[in-house]
């Protein structure tokens, strides 16, 4: 209802209607770099930076326009029907009575992509196209005023842009971090053997990611989804001379392909469930309205979860992500921390009604999504403890934090999940780029134990920004991570007074554990890198400005972005203007969520913040961090160069030793995947198939051939004495020239095939005559 009204009032904003420019600019830049990059003074980097800057400006303008529109509708609330949830004006859909104007609903601009198939709906569509929620594939034009002639384009598949809070938020994050990474890279990969290719791929990635973010149909989403995957492949394998790197690239691509099975099947199920439509809007509306059975949604959601598991590094398909650190560090920051890996989370948010209804999130206690998320955040966090490579610590931390986002969405904490995506992008990019800066100083090593230590004295800027990033990641107030983490924990609805969508006890415990673990492993990493004595060989140095400036900007963001979604009570307590309260929620939460209200069984609820929970969670993090700090401090007192106790707990307690070994071996998942599954497929299984082919299938063919030749011989020799048998022998002698072969043909082989052909025909004719 609201959505339909929304279309009529689709804002006449130039920015909304031309959002396609945002991915188009980097796409153009990709082409320019590929064809002309090498001839330019900066080898193509300048084109990339210019294009991404322009895209960034457009994204920022779009973001501000969006925020302004939402703000305006809230300001007008006296004269508006404000949609309320639990007595709060929590949803950003406001119908102003006078103008019939709706803000907050997605603004969709679509053009026909191609037409395919006829379908059951085609004949009925002409009469029913104007009906509300008509599921038919009337995707050609979504604007209500054009629905009248929808029947002509009944079965066209469209491509378009979808501008709403969620996509605008993502546009901002992607362009912002991409731009910083571009600038950072001009220094970091300076003099690289494939400098131009590197920037071309960065542009292509940025374009693909933005294309995916703006998807208005699931088909477009699939295309973008795979394109970012291939950019990831290319950039992980950037230094493909070393086999380890190309192995990592292959692993990333293939693991993602495994998840893509789920993506393809899940989207197929939704396509048919929504009456043959790829339109995200149609699918969401039907899921909300109960036009798709819960069982179907559940199966589709399970399939899509497989895709989320691979793309967003969820257990047990996360193993590619740490290996992906083989790529250049700026790439890790952009693709494998801030943007591409959150595609799964983004997709859940985009199709949230499907998951919300499918998994029965309202009123639940546990579901597949929350469980996978919980498992990932704890499992990933544990692995971060045993890494000696700084980037790997951050990689496992990313796995863990992605688990946090999925956990949040699994518990119905929609805004919390996406808010964490938002904050995480900044502080994790800050940390990754910081790690890159450290490695730049330490001669391209990431080994914390061998080549680092005490770096705070040598690189103060990197150290300061890294510390801010760490504090934000650990969720210490008032930094960004604190606000989003707190919101997730609140969303579990377990802590007294938080309410929420259900009572997610187990996920809540996972979440609390992770809060403590995150602080602990980051303290360990920080100590090993920046404290103690320097253990490397050559004098480290602070990085140049093109590296440190992006770090400072990101650190600044890591401090402030959390303030975008402060709880109402907090804002009131500080006597800040009310517009600061839950601003992010108002901007981002889609109008689609509003319709949940109508369905009691799928009631969408916002959890209430709790001061005590915030205090306890922060206390846990501080306590865990303090313990680790103390551990290393004592170690340092014993031996300034030591990085671990020689007789630590793990060497004394067998159970811990086993646990440590399991972690060192990454839960043996790589052994299973690479050794057993991949090895088994390309080894014994493939060989068996090939053997069957050569000996059985081909054996039959050869047997038939040989037998018919023998029969032919027999016939010629004993029945038709006049024909010389030498014909067959002639076939054996190699006829290497045209004429020779022609002679061979004339005298034998073809005649035999003709015999055979004739024989076969006779048999078939006989069959027809007698059988038919």
């Amino acid at each position, binding site marked *: 209802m609201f959505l339909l009204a929304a279309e009529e009032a689709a804002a006449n904003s130039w920015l909304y209607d031309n959002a396609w420019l945002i991915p188009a600019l980097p796409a153009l830049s990709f082409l320019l770099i590929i064809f002309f990059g090498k001839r330019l003074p900066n080898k193509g980097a300048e084109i990339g930076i210019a294009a991404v800057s322009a895209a960034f400006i457009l994204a920022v303008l779009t973001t501000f326009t969006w925020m302004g529109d939402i703000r305006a509708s809230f300001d007008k609330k006296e004269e508006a029907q404000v949609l309320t949830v639990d007595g709060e004006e929590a949803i950003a859909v406001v119908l102003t009575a006078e103008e019939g104007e709706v803000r907050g609903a997605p603004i969709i601009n679509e053009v026909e992509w*191609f037409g395919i198939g*006829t379908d059951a709906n085609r004949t009925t569509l002409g009469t029913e196209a104007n009906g509300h929620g008509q599921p038919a594939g009337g995707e050609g034009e979504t604007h209500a005023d054009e629905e009248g002639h929808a029947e002509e384009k009944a079965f066209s598949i469209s491509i378009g842009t979808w501008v709403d809070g969620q996509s605008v938020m993502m546009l901002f994050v992607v362009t912002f971090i991409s731009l910083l990474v571009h600038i950072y890279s001009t220094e970091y990969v300076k003099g690289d053997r494939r400098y131009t290719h590197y920037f071309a791929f960065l542009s292509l990635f940025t374009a693909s990611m933005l294309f995916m973010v703006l998807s208005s149909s699931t088909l477009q989403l699939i295309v973008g989804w795979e394109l970012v995957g291939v950019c990831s492949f290319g950039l992980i394998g950037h230094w493909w001379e070393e086999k380890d790197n190309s192995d990592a690239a292959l692993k990333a691509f293939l693991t993602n392909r495994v998840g893509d099975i789920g993506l393809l099947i899940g989207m*197929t199920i939704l396509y048919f469930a929504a009456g043959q439509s790829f339109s995200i809007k149609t699918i969401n509306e039907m899921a909300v309205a109960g036009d798709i059975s819960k069982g179907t949604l559940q199966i589709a959601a399970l399939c899509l979860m497989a895709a989320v598991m691979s793309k967003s590094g969820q257990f047990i398909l996360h193993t590619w992500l740490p290996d992906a650190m083989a790529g250049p560090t700026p790439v890790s920051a952009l693709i494998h921390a801030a943007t591409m890996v959150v595609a799964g989370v983004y997709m859940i948010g985009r199709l949230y009604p499907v998951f919300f209804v499918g998994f029965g999130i309202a009123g639940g206690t546990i579901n597949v999504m929350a469980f996978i998320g919980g498992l990932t955040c704890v499992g990933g966090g544990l692995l971060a403890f045993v890494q000696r490579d700084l980037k790997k610590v951050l990689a496992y931390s990313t796995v863990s934090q992605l688990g946090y986002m999925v956990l949040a969405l699994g518990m119905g904490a929609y805004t919390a999940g996406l808010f964490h995506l938002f904050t995480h992008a900044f502080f994790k990019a800050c940390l990754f780029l910081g790690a890159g800066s450290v490695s730049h100083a330490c001669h391209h090593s990431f080994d914390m134990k061998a080549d680092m230590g005490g770096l705070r004295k040598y690189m103060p800027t990197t150290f300061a920004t890294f510390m801010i990033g760490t504090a934000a990641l650990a969720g210490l107030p008032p930094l960004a991570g604190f606000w989003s983490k707190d919101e997730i924990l609140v969303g579990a609805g377990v802590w007294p007074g938080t309410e929420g969508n259900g009572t997610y006890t187990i996920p809540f415990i996972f979440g609390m554990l992770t809060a403590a673990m995150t602080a602990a492993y980051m303290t360990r990493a920080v100590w090993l890198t920046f404290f103690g004595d320097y253990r490397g060989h050559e004098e480290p140095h602070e990085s140049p400005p093109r590296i440190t400036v992006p770090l400072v900007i990101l650190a600044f963001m890591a401090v402030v972005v959390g303030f975008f979604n402060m709880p109402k009570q907090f804002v009131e307590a500080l006597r800040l203007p009310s517009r600061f309260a839950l601003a992010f929620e108002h901007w981002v939460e889609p109008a689609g969520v509003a319709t949940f209200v109508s369905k009691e069984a799928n009631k969408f609820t916002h959890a209430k913040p709790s001061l005590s929970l915030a205090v306890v969670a922060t206390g846990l993090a501080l306590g865990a961090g303090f313990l680790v700090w103390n551990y290393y401090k004592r170690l340092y007192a014993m031996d300034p160069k030591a990085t671990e106790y020689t007789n630590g707990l793990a060497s004394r307690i067998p159970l811990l030793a086993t646990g440590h070994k399991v972690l060192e071996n990454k839960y043996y998942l790589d052994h299973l995947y690479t050794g057993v599954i991949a090895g088994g497929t390309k080894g014994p*299984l493939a060989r068996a198939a*090939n053997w069957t082919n050569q000996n059985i299938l081909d054996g039959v063919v050869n047997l038939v051939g040989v037998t018919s030749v023998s029969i032919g011989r027999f016939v010629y020799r004993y029945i038709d004495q006049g024909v010389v048998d030498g014909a067959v022998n002639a076939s054996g002698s190699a006829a290497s020239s*045209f004429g020779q072969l022609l002679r061979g043909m004339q005298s034998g082989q073809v005649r035999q095939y003709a015999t055979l052909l004739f024989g076969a025909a006779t048999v078939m004719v006989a069959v*027809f005559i007698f059988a038919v």
Partner: protein
Amino acid sequence: MEDFLNSWGLTAMVFAPLVGAVVMMLIPERDEELHKMVALVASAVSFVIGILLLTNFDYGASGTMQFAVDRSWIDVINARYAIGMDGMSLPLIALTLLVTPLVIIYSWNHIPKPGNAKAFLILMLVLHTGMLGTFVARDLVLFFVFFEVVLLPMYFMIGVWGGEDRLYASIKFFLYTLFGSAFMLVSFLALYWLTGSATFNMVELAERVVDPVEGLSASQQTLLFGGMFLGFGIKVPMFPFHTWLPDAHTQAPTQGSVILAAVLLKLGTYGFVRIALPILPEGAVAWAPWIGLLAVIGIIYGALGCLAQTDMKRLIAFSSVAHMGYVMLGIATLTSFGINAAIFGMVAHGLITGMLFFIAGSVKERYHTLEIKRLGGLLHKDQAPRMGWILAITSMASLGLPGLAGFWGEFPAILAAYNPNAGLNTTVFRIYMVVAAIGTVLAAAYLLWLLQRTAFGEPSEEFVDHPDVHDTVFTEWVAWVPMLILIVVLGFVPGLIFDVTNEPVSIIGDVFKNMSSGAALGSGG
């Protein structure tokens, strides 16, 4: 001009290469350059006429046969010279028109051993006429003639210009396809007699077969479909009739492989959608689950076969088995969505696998081996980096990456399998769908593994500073760039094909839809 196109356009397009071949026969063998020129001109004439036809084609009525000609030919059996082009044949005709001249250009400095450009190019032109003729024929006898005309030149190409094991491969190719053709021919003849219509016209036969009074029974249709299935299925080739393919491909000269992959395999799948499905709908319904089964077995089996190969060309050949599996799966769903996907898949596979064979040929020319173990580092600065990139893009296209052509043959076929035509068992096809989706992982595995072992890493000792190793040359660029452009453009604008094929395909799709709803009504009443 339009009059000419309407009455003579298709004929001129089909036979222009043959005229070129005749001219070349009169030119002495030693004038190699002249031969190449004549061959190129002949195929270019065909191409230009084709372009004229394409531009004059009424895309709003792509479901009807255009530029149609129907003249008497063999009166005794009432076989007629009936040709025409509709939206279903148009993409395949365009593919043939494009690929053959490119192959001739590539031949400019790549005439395979033992030389003799004259014979080689004459065969190429005969092949060209045969392929085009098959796609325009509307009469079963005419179709059969063209279908068989294609065999002989390819047989010689493999047998004379092929690799070490060429004789075995060429004989196997020839024998196997001919074997299938025999059954196909019997089915054609049986149609002629059983319907009592005394015609070989495809449309008339289709109407006749479903005639409630004089039509064919379901069991008759099933039997006749079986004959066609063997004929077309071997040509596709479908598992388990595919074993001629790896041998033929591996032994064939590059040009032969390209033509074989790009166009020849499509004659089989085209036969299914043009002849078998519309004429024998009930037979198709009976056979569809089995075709689907063989298709998905082929997808997995072909992929596993690829993983086991040690020879680059043989690997690409096996990948055709897997890819044609998707095409056949699309056809087996009997839905317009699936058949559209199948036609797209045919064109995409033609371009992509054709490209892969081109690259394999050029690799062989430089490294004198296609053994994957000995290759590596193609992307390296002093090896052939541009060719390495082309291989990478083509591999990505082949594994079905969205944004490149391969995807649009693959995903819609998988999608269509979820909801096959009403008469078919949904559960069975959903299992096929999952298997086919798993096949996409295997496809990525063998292609990327190939890419890793040939293009990435360091080149092996023996090829560092090897005199024969050099990057892409001019004729290669000319031959490859159009194909690469099409692979990318079709990836982003799939409508270029779907919008043309949709209407004629919908006509077939409607036949099956009405059949199932008719059956439902019948049983209901």
